[in-house]
């Protein structure tokens, strides 16, 4: 569905060359997040966690600015294990114009359970109000680890 709109209106952009790379650091604020779980491996472990590639998510990402703490991604989940809200609290964001990000995030649920999750991430800045971010996270439970890659589009919606 959305892809069709992209094809239609953004089809305009296809007529142009890609000579102009657009880039700009995003600013402090809340961002509407649309994510797609590109991979979850190994499937034997991830499926027991209720994680399946191809899942789409919708959420809100708070970006506190470059080099600051407080970044949080809140998203819905709807899996075989249940439905609810998940909050991922990230460590300090990368310095200005740095796109690579890594460390350990805190993942929490309404149930109160919280886990420390190692992650790496890569921003692709578009302009001051939008960016793409790819997050690779390793979730471990009872000695089993599921590695996920989620691609998220961020669109600013306020401060």
């Amino acid at each position, binding site marked *: 569905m959305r892809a069709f709109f992209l094809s239609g209106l953004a*089809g*305009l952009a296809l007529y142009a060359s890609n000579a102009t790379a657009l880039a700009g650091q995003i600013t402090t604020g*809340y961002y509407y997040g649309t994510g797609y779980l590109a991979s979850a491996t190994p499937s034997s472990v991830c499926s027991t966690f209720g994680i399946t590639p191809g899942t789409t998510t919708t959420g809100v990402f708070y970006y506190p600015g470059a080099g600051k703490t407080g970044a949080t991604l809140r998203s819905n989940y709807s899996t075989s294990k249940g439905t609810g809200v998940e909050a991922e609290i990230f460590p300090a964001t990368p310095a200005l114009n740095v796109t690579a990000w890594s460390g350990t995030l805190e993942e929490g649920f309404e149930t109160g359970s919280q886990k420390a999750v190692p992650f790496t991430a890569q921003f692709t800045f578009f302009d001051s109000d939008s960016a793409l971010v790819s997050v690779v996270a390793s979730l471990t439970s009872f000695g089993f680890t599921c590695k996920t890659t989620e691609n998220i589009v961020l*669109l600013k*919606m*306020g401060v």
Partner: protein
Amino acid sequence: MNMKLSSAAACIIGLIGPSMAQAATQPVLGYYFATGYVSSATPTAACSAVGVTAGDDYNGIFYYPGAGHTGGVLRQATATATKTAITELKFPTTPAAGTTAWSGTLQAGTEGSTFVATPFTASFTFLDAASADLSLTVTVGGCSEVWDFALMRTGHD
């Protein structure tokens, strides 16, 4: 989900009747959650070629800079197995306060591309200070597309 809620809410509106339809407050500057629907895409052959079909829908964010100001931008997100992308439509100066018709040339682009000038016409239907409808018509590759958006405010600069 949304459909059920929408249907229920629409029924309530139906019961109220047209008396409330007269509210026409100008939306204030800020970010608006935009949910859109392609109400028309003609001719079919040309629209199929650019991947647009009547009935398509999507979500995005519209930044409204206030009446008579530059900076209006509609951003749309795509996150699928084959593509993660942002489309931006940068509009010219918004209509003056109380004016609902809007036309001119917008700039359409995606990350990593140049922006392309595209003529458009649009019309607002104001509901209150934080919500409005926007009907947008553009022609892409010979396909005339009419998009109907519901805009709901989420925040400010």
